[in-house]
């Protein structure tokens, strides 16, 4: 088949999955957070308020696309796409099953992490160009936070790579299906990855860039209509991408312990998606439970606790792997 057509179809498919994930996440965030706060969330439209999602989307699509009078027009218009496009590309590396993966380069894990490093620059562009104090402060925090938490996230991904001997997400999942889920040998990395994911997806207790009570809506204060929609779509896609990343690295991806890939067959994709949404549910419960960090504390946790701890843990882990390998070789 024509390679252009294949690429186009794959891109379209990812877009559809992203949109579906976005609409599901809108509903989920309202209901989960609502119940966590002893509220009901949306109830009026449709059964259990599920049609509220449609109303939200229609609202986003039909609102006026406005921009502040003195905004930096050029950056303001392009910023949502600097956020959206890398999130979209990162999404395409998610291994849903052994065959269902849109793009599977040899180092897909690193590729995904590299693309996930770009959206904060878009968030910064959005905040900076809005020429609003709230947005600018949100933007500055986005940059500060990203610099802080990107490194522990990268370091947290190293132990699974050491164990699997590959930086390909698919290979890491397969290696886990042959041994054990890497959450067991790499538990500290798993915890670090969870914390960093919570931060990188701008969720409380680390939602510094938005911080409703302090900054209205942070970097997205001045945005409306579908430009706002794109940033939110990217954020929800980010939630899913990070969940998928952690599921693939530590929780066995689309496999289940004791069940072979062939026996799982078409249910593999369901297993994967279910794991991801369970993790997203966990993120949301954390978001609904803990109060926000103060900005200086938040940076301190990153630089003075997480970073030294991850470095020390990698040294310990690598040494342990080496010693175990030597003992096995010696015996």
């Amino acid at each position, binding site marked *: 088949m024509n*390679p*252009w057509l294949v690429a186009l179809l794959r891109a379209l498919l990812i877009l559809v999955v992203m949109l579906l994930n976005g609409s599901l996440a809108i509903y989920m965030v309202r209901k989960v957070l609502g119940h966590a706060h002893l509220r009901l969330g949306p109830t009026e439209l449709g059964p259990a308020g599920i049609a509220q999602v449609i109303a939200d989307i229609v609202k986003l699509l039909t609102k006026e696309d406005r921009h502040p009078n003195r905004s*930096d027009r*050029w*950056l303001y218009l392009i910023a949502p796409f*600097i956020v959206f496009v890398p999130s979209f590309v990162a999404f395409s590396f998610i291994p849903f099953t052994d065959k269902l993966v849109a793009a599977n*380069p*040899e*180092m897909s894990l*690193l*590729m995904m*992490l*590299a*693309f996930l*490093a*770009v959206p*904060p*620059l878009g968030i*910064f*562009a959005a905040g*900076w160009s809005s*020429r609003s104090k709230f947005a600018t402060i949100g933007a*500055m925090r986005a*940059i500060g936070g*990203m*610099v802080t938490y*990107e490194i522990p996230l990268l370091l947290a991904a190293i132990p699974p790579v050491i164990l699997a001997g*590959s*930086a390909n997400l698919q290979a890491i999942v397969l290696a886990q299906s042959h041994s054990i889920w890497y959450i067991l040998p790499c538990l500290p990395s798993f915890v670090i990855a969870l914390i960093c994911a919570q931060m990188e997806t701008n969720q409380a207790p680390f939602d510094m860039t938005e911080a409703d009570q302090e900054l209205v809506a942070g970097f997205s204060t001045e945005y409306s209509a579908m430009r706002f929609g794109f940033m939110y779509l990217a954020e929800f896609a980010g939630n899913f991408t990070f969940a998928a990343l952690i599921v693939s690295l530590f929780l066995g991806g689309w496999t289940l312990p004791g069940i072979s890939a062939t026996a799982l067959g078409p249910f593999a994709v369901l297993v994967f998606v279910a794991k991801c949404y369970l993790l997203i549910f966990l993120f949301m419960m954390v978001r609904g439970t803990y109060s926000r960090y103060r900005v200086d504390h938040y940076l301190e946790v990153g630089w003075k606790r997480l970073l030294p701890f991850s470095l020390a843990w990698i040294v310990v882990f690598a040494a342990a792997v080496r010693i175990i390998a030597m003992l096995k070789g010696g015996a």
Partner: protein
Amino acid sequence: MLNTIAFLVLGCAIILGAFSVVTVKNVMHAAYWLLEVAVAVAGLFYFMSAEYIAILQLLVYAGAVGMLLVFTVMITRRSRIDNERPAAFSLFALLASALLFAALAYGVLQSPTFAVRAAPATVSMLTFGRTLFSTDGWVLAFEIASLLLTVALVAAVWWTKDRDD
């Protein structure tokens, strides 16, 4: 075919971006054009089967260096109005860049690999790591670089801490 089109698109994007970095008046816009150039160069590396270099280009140049630039612009501007830089024409800069271009072009054209067009070899992470960390490879250079970075880091911490006494 696919590669040629990708090369043309990315090449044009790089030239347009690089030109804009120099000519655009707003420094923040210039920083974002540089980001665009970095991403396009990463794409170029990817299409030349240098996957690892592409990732590094994206992580280091688009991620870290882009962030650093934006950070610098952000903390050195008092108001966002003085984002504008003067568009001064400098004959000296023109001469210097022309000289650099000539030197680079000469070097590229003279190099033996330019004519050969070596078949694309995918460098895996394993070979890359082996070359980087083996004693007959680059391990010394690597360690010296990391020592240099550590020194810079310590100096930065020393520089920023309160020294009222």
